[in-house]
C-alpha cells in the first residue's frame, strides 16, 4: 500500500525546497550559532573540564522547542494556504505517502543541521579522549527527539492554514512533552489521578528518554518510545488530512 517511490519523489522535492528558499540557511546558521552559545556559555563546556558533549546535548530539547516548530509549521499549512494541497492530493499519491515524504524530508534536514555540528565533536576529540560511542548515542537521541517534535509539528500544521497558529500550538504541545516528566506537570495530576496515569504521563517525557539515550545507553524502550511517538503523530496527521482536505 505504501509506495516508496512516491515517498522518495516527494521527499526529494521537499528537501530541495528547503535549500531553494532561505529556510535551510537561516535554520542551520541559527541552530549552529545557538547550540554553540548554549554549550560554551550556559553549559560551561570548558569549566566542566570533561571530554564529553553533555553540555552540548543538554540544551537540545530547548533549542528544538522553538526551532522545530518554525520548520514544521509550513509543512501542511503552506500547502493549504497556496492551494497546492489540492494539486498534491489529486496526484496519484496517497495521503500517508505525502505525510511520510514531507516528514522524512524535514527529519533528514534536521539531521543535516545536526551533522554540521561536527566541529564540536572534533573539538572535544582534540581536547581529550571522549567516549565516542556516548557521543554517537547523543546524536542519535537528539535526532530521534527532533523527529518527535517534527511529527507533532506535522500533525498541528495539518490542522490549519495559518502558519503562526501552527507554530504556537506546536511549541506548546512540545513543551508539554518536554515537561511531562517534571514536577510542575506531574504535581498537577498526582493529587487526583491514579498513580498509573501519573506514571504514564511521566513516561511520555522527552527529557527522560532523551537523557537516557545521551548517557550512552541505547535502550530499546527509548527507541521504541520515540519511533512510536512519531508513528502516532504522523498517523494522526494522515487522519486529519484525510477528513479535512479542503480548508
Amino acid at each position, binding site marked *: 500500500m505504501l509506495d516508496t*517511490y*512516491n515517498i522518495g*519523489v*516527494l521527499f526529494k*522535492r521537499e528537501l*530541495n*525546497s528547503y535549500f*531553494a*528558499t532561505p529556510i535551510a540557511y537561516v535554520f542551520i546558521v541559527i541552530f549552529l550559532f545557538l547550540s554553540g552559545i548554549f554549550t560554551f556559555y550556559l553549559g560551561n563546556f570548558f569549566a566542566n573540564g570533561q571530554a564529553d558533549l553533555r553540555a552540548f546535548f543538554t540544551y537540545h530539547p530547548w533549542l528544538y522547542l522553538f526551532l522545530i516548530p518554525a520548520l514544521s509549521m509550513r509543512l501542511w499549512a503552506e500547502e493549504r494556504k*497556496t*492551494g*497546492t494541497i*489540492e*494539486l498534491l*492530493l*489529486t*496526484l*496519484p*499519491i*496517497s495521503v500517508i505517502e505525502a505525510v511520510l515524504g514531507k516528514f522524512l524530508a524535514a527529519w533528514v534536514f534536521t539531521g543535516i543541521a545536526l551533522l554540521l555540528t561536527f566541529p564540536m565533536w572534533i573539538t572535544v576529540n582534540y581536547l581529550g579522549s571522549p567516549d565516542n560511542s556516548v557521543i554517537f548515542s547523543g546524536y542519535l537521541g537528539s535526532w530521534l527527539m527532533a523527529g518527535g517534535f517534527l511529527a507533532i509539528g506535522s500533525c498541528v500544521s495539518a490542522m490549519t492554514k495559518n502558519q503562526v497558529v501552527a507554530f504556537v500550538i506546536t511549541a506548546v504541545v512540545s513543551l508539554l512533552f518536554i515537561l511531562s516528566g517534571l514536577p510542575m506537570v506531574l504535581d498537577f495530576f498526582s493529587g487526583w489521578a491514579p498513580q498509573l496515569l501519573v506514571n504514564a504521563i511521566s513516561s511520555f517525557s522527552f527529557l527522560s528518554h532523551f537523557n537516557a539515550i545521551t548517557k550512552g545507553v541505547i535502550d530499546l524502550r527509548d527507541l521504541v518510545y520515540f519511533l512510536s511517538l512519531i508513528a502516532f503523530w504522523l498517523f494522526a496527521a494522515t487522519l486529519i488530512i484525510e477528513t479535512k*482536505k*479542503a480548508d
Partner: protein
Amino acid sequence: MVEIENLKKRFGPFTAVQDVSFEVKKGEVLGFLGPNGAGKSTTMKMITGFLTPTAGRVNVAGFDIETEPQEVKRRIGYLPEGAPAYPDMTPLEFLDFIAQIRGYQGKEKQQRIDKTIEQINLQSVLNQSIETLSKGFKRRVGLAQAILHDPEVLIMDEPTDGLDPNQKHEVRSLIQSMAAEKVIILSTHILEEVDAVCSRAIIIANGRVVADGTPENLEARAPLHNAVTLTLNAEQSQAASIRQQLLSLKDVKKLEKLEESDNNLRYRLVPERRCSIISEVSKLSHAQNWSVAELHVAKGRLDDVFRQITT
C-alpha cells in the same frame, strides 16, 4: 468514460452539491456553467478525488473513486482553480516533479517534459521561479502539469480565468486540439467560451443540474430565440393595420413596438414555442409590398438562458 451518479456534498449544515448526475464520453468537451457557489468546483473536486462525496458515485474509465482512487487519479489531469503550483520551484523543476510522481523516469520523462513545454509554449520562463511569473504563465504551468501525462480525462476549473484575449485564444485552441482524444470537463463563467470550445454544456444552480445539452440546444431555450425584428419604411398611419397583419400570422405570439415614428416602424415579433417565423414574415412583407429596411432573426443567447434558469 466519466460517470457521475447522484453526487452529493454537504459541508456541515450547508449542502454545496445536492444531486448531480451525468455521463461524459470520449471526444466530448463538457462546459460546466453556473453562478458562483453553484457547486461547480465542489463537483470537480469530487471527481478528481480531492473531496469525498457525502453520497453518490464517481466512476472514471471503469474505476470507482472511492475504492480505487489511485487508478482514477492516474487517468485524470486536473487544473485546480487558480492553478496552484509550488512558488519556489521553476516550471522546469515543477514539471520534473510532476513527471516523476506520474511515474516517468529517464528518457521517457525527458520526452514528456519537452513535449509539454512545446505544447504550452513555456520555453521562455523555464528557469524562472514560479512566484515571479505573470498570471498567464502561471496558468500555463498549471495546464502543463495537467496534460503532461496525456490523461484520458482532463478536468479544468476556470482554465482561462484572468487571461488576456490572446492567451484565452491559445488555451482554447489547445483544448480543441486535444478534444477528440479525451474527455474534457471545464468550468467557466465566460459563456462565449462554451460556444467556442464545448460540445456540451451543463448548467448547475444550487447544487443541481438545471440544464444539459449542446450549446445550440440551450440557446434555443432563450426566451427570444427565433424572435424576428422587422423595420419598415412606412407611414405611421399604416402602423395599426401592419401590426394587425403581423399579429395574425401563424405562430406569432406577441408583437413588441420598438419604435413607431414616421417612415420608421420597428417591431419585434416573438414566436410561439420559439419556432421559426421568419419565412412567414418575409412572405407577408413581400405580398404586401412593404419596404423592408431590416429583417433579422435573433438567435437565443446563452447569457439569457443562463439568467433565465439560474435566477
